[in-house]
Protein backbone atom coordinates (compact mmCIF):
# COMPACT_ATOMS: atom_id res chain seq x y z
CA UNK A 1 0.00 0.00 0.00
CA UNK A 2 2.82 2.37 0.93
CA UNK A 3 4.58 1.51 -2.33
CA UNK A 4 1.37 2.31 -4.24
CA UNK A 5 1.26 5.78 -2.65
CA UNK A 6 4.86 6.48 -3.70
CA UNK A 7 4.52 5.11 -7.23
CA UNK A 8 1.19 6.90 -7.74
CA UNK A 9 2.72 10.23 -6.76
CA UNK A 10 5.76 9.67 -8.99
CA UNK A 11 3.56 8.49 -11.87
CA UNK A 12 1.32 11.57 -11.61
CA UNK A 13 4.27 13.97 -11.46
CA UNK A 14 6.04 12.25 -14.34
CA UNK A 15 2.87 12.42 -16.40
CA UNK A 16 3.07 16.21 -16.42
CA UNK A 17 6.81 16.38 -16.83
CA UNK A 18 6.46 16.54 -20.58
CA UNK A 19 3.01 18.08 -20.57
CA UNK A 20 2.88 18.59 -24.34
CA UNK A 21 3.40 14.90 -25.00
CA UNK A 22 0.86 14.02 -22.34
CA UNK A 23 -1.72 16.39 -23.82
CA UNK A 24 -1.20 14.90 -27.30
CA UNK A 25 -1.59 11.37 -25.92
CA UNK A 26 -4.64 12.28 -23.81
CA UNK A 27 -6.17 13.89 -26.92
CA UNK A 28 -5.57 10.70 -28.91
CA UNK A 29 -7.18 8.57 -26.18
CA UNK A 30 -10.09 11.03 -25.90
CA UNK A 31 -10.77 10.88 -29.63
CA UNK A 32 -10.43 7.09 -29.71
CA UNK A 33 -12.86 6.69 -26.79
CA UNK A 34 -15.24 9.18 -28.37
CA UNK A 35 -15.07 7.25 -31.66
CA UNK A 36 -15.68 3.97 -29.85
CA UNK A 37 -18.73 5.23 -27.97
CA UNK A 38 -20.22 7.65 -30.50
CA UNK A 39 -19.89 5.36 -33.51
CA UNK A 40 -21.23 2.47 -31.45
CA UNK A 41 -24.20 4.65 -30.42
CA UNK A 42 -24.90 5.38 -34.10
CA UNK A 43 -24.58 1.75 -35.13
CA UNK A 44 -26.57 0.57 -32.12
CA UNK A 45 -29.27 3.12 -32.90
CA UNK A 46 -29.46 2.02 -36.53
CA UNK A 47 -29.55 -1.70 -35.74
CA UNK A 48 -32.02 -1.33 -32.87
CA UNK A 49 -34.23 0.76 -35.13
CA UNK A 50 -34.09 -1.99 -37.74
CA UNK A 51 -34.93 -4.58 -35.11
CA UNK A 52 -37.79 -2.53 -33.65
CA UNK A 53 -39.22 -1.87 -37.13
CA UNK A 54 -38.89 -5.56 -37.87
CA UNK A 55 -40.64 -6.46 -34.63
CA UNK A 56 -43.42 -3.94 -35.33
CA UNK A 57 -43.95 -5.59 -38.69
CA UNK A 58 -44.15 -9.06 -37.12
CA UNK A 59 -45.63 -7.63 -34.77
CA UNK A 60 -45.07 -8.42 -31.09
CA UNK A 61 -42.18 -10.11 -29.36
CA UNK A 62 -43.79 -13.53 -29.03
CA UNK A 63 -46.22 -15.08 -31.48
CA UNK A 64 -48.53 -18.06 -31.43
CA UNK A 65 -49.37 -19.95 -34.62
CA UNK A 66 -50.49 -23.29 -35.88
CA UNK A 67 -47.29 -25.39 -36.22
CA UNK A 68 -47.58 -25.32 -40.03
CA UNK A 69 -48.49 -21.66 -40.38
CA UNK A 70 -44.96 -20.38 -40.90
CA UNK A 71 -44.41 -22.77 -43.81
CA UNK A 72 -47.87 -22.22 -45.22
CA UNK A 73 -49.49 -19.00 -43.95
CA UNK A 74 -52.91 -19.89 -45.27
CA UNK A 75 -56.40 -19.97 -43.82
CA UNK A 76 -56.09 -23.74 -43.37
CA UNK A 77 -53.59 -23.35 -40.56
CA UNK A 78 -55.74 -21.78 -37.86
CA UNK A 79 -54.90 -21.82 -34.16
CA UNK A 80 -56.83 -24.78 -32.71
CA UNK A 81 -58.27 -22.67 -29.85
CA UNK A 82 -61.27 -20.44 -30.36
CA UNK A 83 -60.80 -16.69 -30.29
CA UNK A 84 -63.09 -16.55 -27.25
CA UNK A 85 -60.95 -19.12 -25.41
CA UNK A 86 -57.80 -17.20 -26.31
CA UNK A 87 -59.33 -13.95 -25.10
CA UNK A 88 -60.32 -15.56 -21.82
CA UNK A 89 -56.85 -17.06 -21.29
CA UNK A 90 -54.83 -13.96 -22.19
CA UNK A 91 -57.12 -11.56 -20.33
CA UNK A 92 -56.29 -13.38 -17.10
CA UNK A 93 -52.54 -13.05 -17.67
CA UNK A 94 -50.41 -10.09 -16.64
CA UNK A 95 -48.78 -9.69 -20.06
CA UNK A 96 -48.05 -6.11 -21.12
CA UNK A 97 -50.03 -6.36 -24.35
CA UNK A 98 -51.47 -8.97 -26.68
CA UNK A 99 -53.70 -9.22 -29.73
CA UNK A 100 -55.29 -12.10 -31.63
CA UNK A 101 -55.35 -11.65 -35.39
CA UNK A 102 -56.38 -13.18 -38.64
CA UNK A 103 -53.52 -12.98 -41.13
CA UNK A 104 -53.91 -14.27 -44.66
CA UNK A 105 -52.38 -13.59 -48.07
CA UNK A 106 -54.75 -11.60 -50.28
CA UNK A 107 -55.14 -9.56 -53.46
CA UNK A 108 -56.21 -5.94 -53.16
CA UNK A 109 -57.69 -4.22 -56.19
CA UNK A 110 -58.59 -0.64 -56.81
CA UNK A 111 -60.34 0.44 -59.93
CA UNK A 112 -56.92 0.80 -61.58
CA UNK A 113 -54.39 -1.62 -59.99
CA UNK A 114 -54.13 -4.92 -58.14
CA UNK A 115 -51.41 -6.06 -55.78
CA UNK A 116 -50.59 -8.96 -53.54
CA UNK A 117 -50.73 -8.04 -49.81
CA UNK A 118 -50.91 -9.52 -46.35
CA UNK A 119 -54.42 -8.94 -45.05
CA UNK A 120 -54.66 -8.69 -41.28
CA UNK A 121 -57.90 -8.73 -39.33
CA UNK A 122 -57.39 -6.95 -36.01
CA UNK A 123 -59.17 -5.84 -32.88
CA UNK A 124 -58.22 -2.12 -32.86
CA UNK A 125 -58.36 -1.94 -29.08
CA UNK A 126 -56.05 -4.92 -28.57
CA UNK A 127 -53.81 -3.80 -31.45
CA UNK A 128 -52.98 -0.55 -29.66
CA UNK A 129 -51.45 -2.58 -26.83
CA UNK A 130 -48.89 -4.27 -29.10
CA UNK A 131 -47.94 -1.08 -30.98
CA UNK A 132 -48.43 -2.65 -34.41
CA UNK A 133 -47.90 -0.70 -37.61
CA UNK A 134 -51.64 -0.47 -38.23
CA UNK A 135 -52.13 1.64 -35.12
CA UNK A 136 -49.97 4.41 -36.63
CA UNK A 137 -52.66 6.05 -38.79
CA UNK A 138 -51.39 9.24 -40.42
CA UNK A 139 -54.48 10.20 -42.35
CA UNK A 140 -58.13 9.31 -41.93
CA UNK A 141 -59.26 7.30 -38.95
CA UNK A 142 -58.31 4.11 -37.17
CA UNK A 143 -60.55 1.05 -37.25
CA UNK A 144 -63.33 1.56 -34.71
CA UNK A 145 -63.99 -2.04 -33.70
CA UNK A 146 -63.74 -5.63 -34.89
CA UNK A 147 -66.85 -5.15 -37.03
CA UNK A 148 -65.55 -2.09 -38.84
CA UNK A 149 -66.21 -2.39 -42.57
CA UNK A 150 -63.29 -0.21 -43.63
CA UNK A 151 -59.61 -0.96 -44.21
CA UNK A 152 -56.41 0.83 -43.38
CA UNK A 153 -53.71 0.65 -46.01
CA UNK A 154 -50.21 2.07 -46.22
CA UNK A 155 -49.65 5.43 -47.87
CA UNK A 156 -47.29 3.84 -50.37
CA UNK A 157 -49.84 1.15 -51.27
CA UNK A 158 -52.45 3.85 -51.87
CA UNK A 159 -50.04 5.46 -54.33
CA UNK A 160 -49.38 2.16 -56.08
CA UNK A 161 -53.09 1.39 -56.32
CA UNK A 162 -53.76 4.92 -57.41
CA UNK A 163 -56.48 5.14 -54.79
CA UNK A 164 -57.16 7.41 -51.83
CA UNK A 165 -58.99 7.85 -48.58
CA UNK A 166 -62.74 7.23 -48.95
CA UNK A 167 -62.46 5.11 -52.09
CA UNK A 168 -63.45 1.47 -52.22
CA UNK A 169 -61.12 -1.45 -52.80
CA UNK A 170 -61.79 -5.15 -53.17
CA UNK A 171 -59.90 -7.71 -51.08
CA UNK A 172 -59.82 -11.28 -52.25
CA UNK A 173 -58.47 -14.39 -50.52
CA UNK A 174 -59.38 -18.05 -50.04
CA UNK A 175 -61.70 -19.57 -47.45
CA UNK A 176 -60.97 -22.92 -45.69
CA UNK A 177 -62.74 -24.77 -48.54
CA UNK A 178 -60.33 -23.19 -51.04
CA UNK A 179 -63.10 -21.10 -52.46
CA UNK A 180 -62.58 -17.46 -53.34
CA UNK A 181 -63.66 -15.16 -50.57
CA UNK A 182 -63.89 -11.47 -51.39
CA UNK A 183 -65.44 -8.29 -50.14
CA UNK A 184 -65.47 -4.61 -50.92
CA UNK A 185 -63.98 -2.28 -48.27
CA UNK A 186 -63.76 1.46 -48.01
CA UNK A 187 -60.30 2.92 -47.33
CA UNK A 188 -60.80 4.70 -43.99
CA UNK A 189 -57.21 5.34 -43.03
CA UNK A 190 -53.67 5.53 -44.35
CA UNK A 191 -50.80 4.43 -42.12
CA UNK A 192 -47.15 5.35 -42.30
CA UNK A 193 -44.23 3.14 -41.43
CA UNK A 194 -40.51 3.79 -41.22
CA UNK A 195 -40.00 1.38 -44.08
CA UNK A 196 -41.84 1.92 -47.35
CA UNK A 197 -41.98 -1.83 -47.91
CA UNK A 198 -44.21 -2.20 -44.85
CA UNK A 199 -46.54 0.48 -46.24
CA UNK A 200 -46.87 -1.58 -49.42
CA UNK A 201 -47.63 -5.03 -48.05
CA UNK A 202 -49.85 -4.70 -44.98
CA UNK A 203 -53.62 -4.08 -45.08
CA UNK A 204 -55.66 -3.93 -41.85
CA UNK A 205 -59.35 -4.73 -41.52
CA UNK A 206 -61.76 -5.41 -38.63
CA UNK A 207 -61.15 -8.91 -37.27
CA UNK A 208 -64.83 -9.97 -37.16
CA UNK A 209 -65.47 -8.56 -40.63
CA UNK A 210 -62.57 -10.57 -42.03
CA UNK A 211 -63.55 -13.71 -40.10
CA UNK A 212 -67.01 -13.40 -41.64
CA UNK A 213 -65.59 -12.89 -45.14
CA UNK A 214 -63.38 -15.96 -44.78
CA UNK A 215 -66.02 -18.04 -42.99
CA UNK A 216 -63.90 -18.68 -39.90
CA UNK A 217 -66.02 -17.13 -37.18
CA UNK A 218 -64.32 -17.09 -33.79
CA UNK A 219 -61.00 -18.35 -35.13
CA UNK A 220 -57.65 -16.65 -35.68
CA UNK A 221 -54.30 -17.47 -37.24
CA UNK A 222 -52.02 -15.55 -34.90
CA UNK A 223 -51.63 -14.20 -31.39
CA UNK A 224 -49.01 -11.48 -30.94
CA UNK A 225 -47.67 -10.66 -27.46
CA UNK A 226 -45.64 -7.66 -26.34
CA UNK A 227 -42.80 -8.23 -23.82
CA UNK A 228 -41.35 -5.77 -21.31
CA UNK A 229 -37.88 -5.83 -22.95
CA UNK A 230 -37.48 -7.01 -26.49
CA UNK A 231 -33.91 -8.12 -25.83
CA UNK A 232 -35.02 -10.86 -23.44
CA UNK A 233 -38.47 -12.34 -24.03
CA UNK A 234 -37.84 -15.77 -22.52
CA UNK A 235 -40.17 -15.20 -19.54
CA UNK A 236 -43.04 -14.04 -21.73
CA UNK A 237 -42.47 -16.94 -24.13
CA UNK A 238 -42.80 -19.43 -21.27
CA UNK A 239 -45.85 -17.59 -19.93
CA UNK A 240 -47.60 -17.78 -23.30
CA UNK A 241 -46.74 -21.48 -23.69
CA UNK A 242 -48.39 -22.11 -20.33
CA UNK A 243 -51.57 -20.33 -21.51
CA UNK A 244 -51.96 -22.32 -24.70
CA UNK A 245 -53.76 -25.63 -25.18
CA UNK A 246 -53.48 -27.86 -28.19
CA UNK A 247 -50.99 -28.14 -30.98
CA UNK A 248 -49.53 -24.67 -31.38
CA UNK A 249 -46.15 -23.12 -31.97
CA UNK A 250 -45.05 -20.38 -29.55
CA UNK A 251 -41.93 -18.58 -30.74
CA UNK A 252 -39.98 -15.50 -29.67
CA UNK A 253 -39.23 -12.89 -32.32
CA UNK A 254 -35.62 -14.00 -32.58
CA UNK A 255 -36.79 -17.33 -33.96
CA UNK A 256 -39.63 -15.89 -36.00
CA UNK A 257 -37.15 -13.72 -37.84
CA UNK A 258 -33.71 -15.29 -37.66
CA UNK A 259 -32.17 -12.39 -39.54
CA UNK A 260 -33.35 -9.90 -36.94
CA UNK A 261 -32.49 -12.26 -34.12
CA UNK A 262 -28.94 -12.76 -35.31
CA UNK A 263 -28.46 -9.01 -35.83
CA UNK A 264 -28.37 -8.41 -32.09
CA UNK A 265 -25.59 -10.94 -31.60
CA UNK A 266 -23.75 -9.80 -34.72
CA UNK A 267 -23.98 -6.20 -33.50
CA UNK A 268 -22.56 -7.10 -30.07
CA UNK A 269 -19.67 -8.91 -31.73
CA UNK A 270 -19.13 -6.09 -34.20
CA UNK A 271 -19.04 -3.48 -31.42
CA UNK A 272 -16.34 -5.44 -29.60
CA UNK A 273 -14.27 -5.86 -32.79
CA UNK A 274 -14.68 -2.16 -33.59
CA UNK A 275 -13.49 -1.14 -30.14
CA UNK A 276 -10.50 -3.45 -30.25
CA UNK A 277 -9.48 -2.19 -33.71
CA UNK A 278 -9.69 1.44 -32.52
CA UNK A 279 -7.68 0.55 -29.45
CA UNK A 280 -5.01 -1.26 -31.46
CA UNK A 281 -4.47 1.91 -33.49
CA UNK A 282 -4.30 3.85 -30.24
CA UNK A 283 -1.97 1.37 -28.54
CA UNK A 284 0.91 2.21 -30.89
CA UNK A 285 0.84 5.77 -29.61
CA UNK A 286 0.46 4.66 -26.02
CA UNK A 287 3.35 2.20 -26.12
CA UNK A 288 5.53 4.72 -27.94
CA UNK A 289 4.76 7.36 -25.29
CA UNK A 290 5.63 4.98 -22.47
CA UNK A 291 8.81 3.75 -24.17
CA UNK A 292 9.92 7.37 -24.62
CA UNK A 293 9.02 8.17 -21.02
CA UNK A 294 11.08 5.21 -19.79
CA UNK A 295 13.96 5.97 -22.12
CA UNK A 296 14.15 9.56 -20.83
CA UNK A 297 14.24 8.39 -17.24
CA UNK A 298 16.74 5.54 -17.33
CA UNK A 299 19.14 7.22 -14.90
CA UNK A 300 16.33 8.23 -12.59
CA UNK A 301 15.03 4.67 -12.58
CA UNK A 302 18.56 3.47 -11.83
CA UNK A 303 18.76 5.93 -8.94
CA UNK A 304 15.49 4.71 -7.46
CA UNK A 305 16.63 1.09 -7.75
CA UNK A 306 19.97 1.99 -6.17
CA UNK A 307 18.20 3.65 -3.26
CA UNK A 308 16.31 0.46 -2.55
CA UNK A 309 13.11 0.70 -4.56
CA UNK A 310 12.08 -2.75 -5.72
CA UNK A 311 11.78 -3.56 -9.44
CA UNK A 312 8.09 -4.34 -8.86
CA UNK A 313 7.56 -0.74 -7.74
CA UNK A 314 9.23 0.54 -10.92
CA UNK A 315 6.96 -1.77 -12.94
CA UNK A 316 3.98 -0.44 -10.99
CA UNK A 317 5.03 3.16 -11.51
CA UNK A 318 5.02 2.85 -15.32
CA UNK A 319 1.74 0.93 -15.31
CA UNK A 320 0.10 3.47 -12.99
CA UNK A 321 1.36 6.24 -15.28
CA UNK A 322 -0.27 4.49 -18.24
CA UNK A 323 -3.51 3.88 -16.33
CA UNK A 324 -3.66 7.55 -15.23
CA UNK A 325 -3.16 8.61 -18.84
CA UNK A 326 -5.96 6.27 -19.90
CA UNK A 327 -8.30 7.39 -17.11
CA UNK A 328 -7.92 11.06 -18.06
CA UNK A 329 -8.56 10.15 -21.71
CA UNK A 330 -11.55 8.02 -20.71
CA UNK A 331 -13.14 10.79 -18.64
CA UNK A 332 -12.75 13.29 -21.48
CA UNK A 333 -13.74 10.74 -24.16
CA UNK A 334 -16.88 9.67 -22.29
CA UNK A 335 -17.87 13.28 -21.69
CA UNK A 336 -17.31 14.17 -25.34
CA UNK A 337 -19.28 11.16 -26.54
CA UNK A 338 -22.17 12.00 -24.21
CA UNK A 339 -22.09 15.64 -25.32
CA UNK A 340 -22.16 14.48 -28.96
CA UNK A 341 -25.04 12.04 -28.56
CA UNK A 342 -27.40 14.11 -26.38
CA UNK A 343 -28.04 16.87 -28.98
CA UNK A 344 -28.80 14.16 -31.56
CA UNK A 345 -31.55 12.46 -29.55
CA UNK A 346 -34.18 13.76 -31.99
CA UNK A 347 -32.48 11.81 -34.73
CA UNK A 348 -30.16 12.44 -37.66
CA UNK A 349 -31.86 12.82 -41.03
CA UNK A 350 -30.15 10.49 -43.47
CA UNK A 351 -32.91 10.65 -46.06
CA UNK A 352 -30.31 11.48 -48.75
CA UNK A 353 -29.19 7.85 -48.52
CA UNK A 354 -32.44 6.43 -47.11
CA UNK A 355 -33.31 4.32 -50.13
CA UNK A 356 -30.01 2.52 -49.92
CA UNK A 357 -30.45 2.15 -46.17
CA UNK A 358 -33.96 0.81 -46.63
CA UNK A 359 -32.61 -2.07 -48.66
CA UNK A 360 -31.35 -3.56 -45.44
CA UNK A 361 -34.23 -2.39 -43.29
CA UNK A 362 -33.00 0.89 -41.83
CA UNK A 363 -35.19 3.99 -41.71
CA UNK A 364 -34.31 7.50 -42.90
CA UNK A 365 -33.91 8.92 -39.39
CA UNK A 366 -31.02 7.61 -37.37
CA UNK A 367 -31.38 7.77 -33.58
CA UNK A 368 -28.07 7.29 -31.72
CA UNK A 369 -28.47 5.02 -28.73
CA UNK A 370 -26.03 5.38 -25.86
CA UNK A 371 -26.24 2.25 -23.73
CA UNK A 372 -24.55 1.67 -20.41
CA UNK A 373 -23.32 -1.72 -21.63
CA UNK A 374 -21.52 -0.15 -24.61
CA UNK A 375 -19.99 2.60 -22.46
CA UNK A 376 -18.77 0.06 -19.92
CA UNK A 377 -17.41 -2.16 -22.71
CA UNK A 378 -15.47 0.75 -24.28
CA UNK A 379 -14.00 1.73 -20.91
CA UNK A 380 -13.09 -1.83 -20.00
CA UNK A 381 -11.49 -2.46 -23.43
CA UNK A 382 -9.35 0.69 -23.10
CA UNK A 383 -8.31 -0.02 -19.51
CA UNK A 384 -7.65 -3.74 -19.87
CA UNK A 385 -5.85 -3.56 -23.22
CA UNK A 386 -4.06 -0.39 -22.08
CA UNK A 387 -2.81 -2.28 -19.05
CA UNK A 388 -1.43 -5.07 -21.24
CA UNK A 389 0.07 -2.60 -23.73
CA UNK A 390 1.97 -0.86 -20.92
CA UNK A 391 3.40 -4.11 -19.54
CA UNK A 392 6.25 -4.31 -22.05
CA UNK A 393 7.80 -0.86 -21.42
CA UNK A 394 7.11 -1.21 -17.69
CA UNK A 395 8.82 -4.60 -17.62
CA UNK A 396 11.83 -3.21 -19.44
CA UNK A 397 12.10 -0.36 -16.96
CA UNK A 398 11.98 -2.73 -14.00
CA UNK A 399 14.73 -4.94 -15.43
CA UNK A 400 17.42 -2.24 -15.48
CA UNK A 401 20.54 -2.91 -13.48
CA UNK A 402 20.80 0.10 -11.15
CA UNK A 403 24.47 0.83 -11.69
CA UNK A 404 24.24 0.50 -15.49
CA UNK A 405 21.14 2.68 -15.59
CA UNK A 406 22.53 5.37 -13.32
CA UNK A 407 25.66 5.78 -15.44
CA UNK A 408 23.81 5.72 -18.76
CA UNK A 409 24.51 8.81 -20.85
Amino acid sequence: MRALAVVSMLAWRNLWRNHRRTIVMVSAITIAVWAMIFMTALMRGMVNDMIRDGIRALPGHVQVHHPDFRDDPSINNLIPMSDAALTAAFSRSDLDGWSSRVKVPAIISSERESRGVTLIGVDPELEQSIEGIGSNVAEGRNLEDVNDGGVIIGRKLAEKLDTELGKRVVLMSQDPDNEIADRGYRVVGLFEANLELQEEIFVFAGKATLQKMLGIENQVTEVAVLAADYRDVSDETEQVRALMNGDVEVLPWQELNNYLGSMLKVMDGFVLVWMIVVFLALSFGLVNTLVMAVFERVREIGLMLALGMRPASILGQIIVESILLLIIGLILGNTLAWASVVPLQDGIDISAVAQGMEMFGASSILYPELTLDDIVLANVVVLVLGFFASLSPAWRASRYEPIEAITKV
Partner: protein
Amino acid sequence: MSAVRCIDLCKTYRQGDQDIKALDHVTLEIKQGGFVCLSAPSGGGKTTLLNAIGGLDSPDSGEVWIAGKRIDNLSKGDLAQLRLTQIGFVFQAYNLIPVLTARENVEFVMQVQGVPANERQEKSTAILEEVGLKGLESRRPAEMSGGQQQRVAVARAIVSRPELVLADEPTANLDSKTSDELMQLFVELNEHHNTTFVIATHDQRVMSYARRLIRMLDGRIVDDINQRAA
Protein backbone atom coordinates in the same frame (compact mmCIF):
# COMPACT_ATOMS: atom_id res chain seq x y z
CA MET B 1 31.92 -5.51 14.65
CA SER B 2 33.11 -4.28 11.27
CA ALA B 3 30.90 -1.97 9.26
CA VAL B 4 32.39 -3.32 6.05
CA ARG B 5 34.48 -6.39 5.36
CA CYS B 6 35.67 -7.46 1.92
CA ILE B 7 37.51 -10.72 1.49
CA ASP B 8 39.56 -11.47 -1.61
CA LEU B 9 37.22 -9.61 -4.01
CA CYS B 10 37.79 -10.07 -7.72
CA LYS B 11 35.93 -8.47 -10.59
CA THR B 12 36.89 -8.52 -14.25
CA TYR B 13 35.28 -6.51 -17.05
CA ARG B 14 35.61 -7.27 -20.70
CA GLN B 15 36.46 -4.23 -22.79
CA GLY B 16 36.82 -5.05 -26.47
CA ASP B 17 39.31 -7.92 -26.65
CA GLN B 18 40.82 -7.15 -23.27
CA ASP B 19 39.94 -8.31 -19.79
CA ILE B 20 40.19 -5.44 -17.30
CA LYS B 21 40.74 -6.39 -13.69
CA ALA B 22 38.64 -3.85 -11.80
CA LEU B 23 39.15 -5.66 -8.48
CA ASP B 24 42.15 -7.91 -8.00
CA HIS B 25 42.02 -9.88 -4.75
CA VAL B 26 40.92 -6.93 -2.60
CA THR B 27 40.66 -7.56 1.12
CA LEU B 28 39.52 -4.74 3.37
CA GLU B 29 37.92 -4.10 6.73
CA ILE B 30 36.32 -0.81 7.87
CA LYS B 31 35.21 -0.28 11.47
CA GLN B 32 31.89 1.27 12.44
CA GLY B 33 32.27 5.08 12.53
CA GLY B 34 35.16 5.03 10.11
CA PHE B 35 35.76 7.90 7.68
CA VAL B 36 37.54 6.32 4.73
CA CYS B 37 38.56 7.61 1.35
CA LEU B 38 39.19 5.28 -1.57
CA SER B 39 41.59 6.96 -3.90
CA ALA B 40 42.66 5.81 -7.34
CA PRO B 41 43.19 7.15 -10.80
CA SER B 42 40.38 6.61 -13.29
CA GLY B 43 39.85 2.89 -13.87
CA GLY B 44 41.69 2.07 -10.65
CA GLY B 45 38.75 0.16 -9.18
CA LYS B 46 37.47 2.53 -6.50
CA THR B 47 33.94 2.86 -7.92
CA THR B 48 33.74 -0.90 -8.56
CA LEU B 49 34.72 -1.53 -4.94
CA LEU B 50 32.19 1.01 -3.70
CA ASN B 51 29.45 -0.59 -5.83
CA ALA B 52 30.34 -4.05 -4.56
CA ILE B 53 30.15 -2.80 -0.96
CA GLY B 54 26.78 -1.19 -1.71
CA GLY B 55 25.33 -4.33 -3.33
CA LEU B 56 24.97 -2.51 -6.65
CA ASP B 57 27.48 -4.76 -8.39
CA SER B 58 28.35 -8.38 -7.70
CA PRO B 59 31.98 -9.54 -7.52
CA ASP B 60 33.17 -12.50 -9.60
CA SER B 61 34.61 -14.03 -6.46
CA GLY B 62 35.20 -13.15 -2.85
CA GLU B 63 32.91 -12.09 -0.06
CA VAL B 64 31.32 -8.80 1.02
CA TRP B 65 30.04 -8.41 4.57
CA ILE B 66 28.01 -5.43 5.82
CA ALA B 67 27.42 -5.11 9.55
CA GLY B 68 28.24 -8.77 10.04
CA LYS B 69 26.02 -10.03 7.23
CA ARG B 70 27.31 -11.50 4.01
CA ILE B 71 25.67 -9.73 1.07
CA ASP B 72 27.39 -10.93 -2.11
CA ASN B 73 25.10 -13.96 -2.28
CA LEU B 74 21.82 -12.14 -1.60
CA SER B 75 18.95 -11.94 -4.09
CA LYS B 76 18.11 -8.70 -5.92
CA GLY B 77 15.16 -8.13 -3.62
CA ASP B 78 17.22 -8.69 -0.47
CA LEU B 79 19.93 -6.37 -1.80
CA ALA B 80 17.28 -3.70 -2.48
CA GLN B 81 16.04 -4.09 1.10
CA LEU B 82 19.63 -3.82 2.41
CA ARG B 83 20.26 -0.64 0.43
CA LEU B 84 16.95 0.77 1.58
CA THR B 85 17.49 0.20 5.28
CA GLN B 86 21.23 0.09 5.96
CA ILE B 87 23.08 2.11 3.33
CA GLY B 88 22.92 5.72 2.26
CA PHE B 89 24.18 6.66 -1.20
CA VAL B 90 25.57 9.89 -2.59
CA PHE B 91 26.45 9.72 -6.27
CA GLN B 92 28.60 11.98 -8.37
CA ALA B 93 25.70 13.40 -10.39
CA TYR B 94 22.08 12.82 -11.11
CA ASN B 95 21.43 12.27 -7.45
CA LEU B 96 17.89 13.53 -7.16
CA ILE B 97 14.51 12.68 -8.63
CA PRO B 98 13.65 15.72 -10.77
CA VAL B 99 9.89 15.68 -10.21
CA LEU B 100 10.21 15.76 -6.42
CA THR B 101 10.96 18.79 -4.24
CA ALA B 102 13.97 18.90 -1.93
CA ARG B 103 11.82 17.73 0.97
CA GLU B 104 10.20 14.95 -1.08
CA ASN B 105 13.60 13.76 -2.27
CA VAL B 106 14.80 13.61 1.32
CA GLU B 107 11.64 11.77 2.34
CA PHE B 108 11.76 9.38 -0.63
CA VAL B 109 13.72 6.61 1.09
CA MET B 110 11.65 6.96 4.26
CA GLN B 111 8.47 6.83 2.22
CA VAL B 112 9.57 3.59 0.56
CA GLN B 113 10.49 2.31 4.01
CA GLY B 114 6.96 3.06 5.17
CA VAL B 115 7.77 5.74 7.74
CA PRO B 116 4.58 7.63 8.78
CA ALA B 117 4.07 11.05 7.16
CA ASN B 118 4.39 13.14 10.33
CA GLU B 119 7.63 11.38 11.31
CA ARG B 120 8.96 11.87 7.78
CA GLN B 121 8.20 15.55 7.86
CA GLU B 122 9.78 15.97 11.27
CA LYS B 123 12.98 14.21 10.21
CA SER B 124 13.23 15.90 6.82
CA THR B 125 12.76 19.34 8.35
CA ALA B 126 15.51 18.68 10.87
CA ILE B 127 17.97 17.21 8.38
CA LEU B 128 17.42 19.93 5.77
CA GLU B 129 18.15 22.51 8.45
CA GLU B 130 21.23 20.54 9.46
CA VAL B 131 22.61 20.57 5.91
CA GLY B 132 21.83 24.30 5.57
CA LEU B 133 18.85 24.11 3.26
CA LYS B 134 16.19 25.57 5.50
CA GLY B 135 13.77 27.55 3.36
CA LEU B 136 14.51 25.58 0.21
CA GLU B 137 12.31 22.60 1.06
CA SER B 138 9.84 23.25 -1.75
CA ARG B 139 12.37 23.71 -4.51
CA ARG B 140 12.82 21.14 -7.19
CA PRO B 141 16.34 20.05 -8.23
CA ALA B 142 16.28 22.24 -11.34
CA GLU B 143 15.76 25.27 -9.08
CA MET B 144 18.83 24.55 -6.94
CA SER B 145 22.58 24.88 -7.46
CA GLY B 146 24.85 21.83 -7.77
CA GLY B 147 26.00 22.27 -4.19
CA GLN B 148 22.49 22.54 -2.87
CA GLN B 149 21.51 19.42 -4.83
CA GLN B 150 24.40 17.47 -3.33
CA ARG B 151 23.34 18.63 0.13
CA VAL B 152 19.84 17.32 -0.52
CA ALA B 153 21.41 14.02 -1.63
CA VAL B 154 23.47 13.90 1.56
CA ALA B 155 20.38 14.70 3.62
CA ARG B 156 18.52 11.86 1.90
CA ALA B 157 21.45 9.50 2.46
CA ILE B 158 21.60 10.09 6.20
CA VAL B 159 18.05 11.00 7.17
CA SER B 160 17.08 7.47 8.10
CA ARG B 161 20.31 7.04 10.03
CA PRO B 162 21.96 4.30 7.95
CA GLU B 163 25.00 2.60 9.42
CA LEU B 164 26.97 3.22 6.26
CA VAL B 165 27.13 6.05 3.73
CA LEU B 166 28.80 5.40 0.38
CA ALA B 167 29.72 8.45 -1.68
CA ASP B 168 31.12 8.22 -5.19
CA GLU B 169 32.97 11.36 -6.24
CA PRO B 170 30.53 13.53 -4.28
CA THR B 171 32.44 16.73 -5.03
CA ALA B 172 33.24 16.10 -8.68
CA ASN B 173 30.82 18.72 -9.96
CA LEU B 174 31.28 21.25 -7.19
CA ASP B 175 33.52 24.27 -6.78
CA SER B 176 36.16 24.19 -4.04
CA LYS B 177 34.16 26.24 -1.52
CA THR B 178 31.10 24.07 -1.90
CA SER B 179 33.27 20.95 -1.79
CA ASP B 180 34.77 22.04 1.53
CA GLU B 181 31.33 22.78 2.95
CA LEU B 182 30.07 19.35 1.87
CA MET B 183 33.09 17.54 3.34
CA GLN B 184 32.73 19.53 6.55
CA LEU B 185 29.17 18.31 6.68
CA PHE B 186 30.30 14.69 6.20
CA VAL B 187 32.80 15.05 9.03
CA GLU B 188 30.18 16.52 11.36
CA LEU B 189 27.71 13.75 10.57
CA ASN B 190 30.40 11.14 11.05
CA GLU B 191 31.38 12.57 14.41
CA HIS B 192 27.88 13.29 15.71
CA HIS B 193 26.09 10.17 14.50
CA ASN B 194 28.96 7.66 14.29
CA THR B 195 27.98 6.97 10.70
CA THR B 196 30.58 5.14 8.65
CA PHE B 197 31.59 7.04 5.52
CA VAL B 198 33.33 5.44 2.54
CA ILE B 199 34.11 8.01 -0.12
CA ALA B 200 35.55 7.23 -3.54
CA THR B 201 37.49 10.20 -4.87
CA HIS B 202 40.60 11.38 -6.62
CA ASP B 203 40.29 14.89 -5.17
CA GLN B 204 43.21 15.66 -2.83
CA ARG B 205 41.11 18.09 -0.82
CA VAL B 206 38.54 15.39 -0.07
CA MET B 207 41.29 12.96 0.89
CA SER B 208 42.60 15.43 3.42
CA TYR B 209 39.38 15.10 5.44
CA ALA B 210 39.62 11.30 5.71
CA ARG B 211 40.99 9.57 8.78
CA ARG B 212 41.94 6.59 6.64
CA LEU B 213 43.06 6.74 3.05
CA ILE B 214 43.12 3.64 0.89
CA ARG B 215 44.96 4.00 -2.40
CA MET B 216 44.16 1.64 -5.26
CA LEU B 217 45.83 0.92 -8.56
CA ASP B 218 44.70 -1.49 -11.26
CA GLY B 219 42.17 -3.05 -8.94
CA ARG B 220 44.53 -3.64 -6.07
CA ILE B 221 45.01 -1.85 -2.75
CA VAL B 222 48.48 -0.43 -2.85
CA ASP B 223 48.40 1.74 0.24
CA ASP B 224 46.29 1.91 3.39
CA ILE B 225 47.15 4.95 5.53
CA ASN B 226 45.72 5.96 8.88
CA GLN B 227 46.00 9.75 8.41
CA ARG B 228 45.09 10.72 11.96
CA ALA B 229 47.90 8.58 13.24
CA ALA B 230 50.18 10.05 10.62
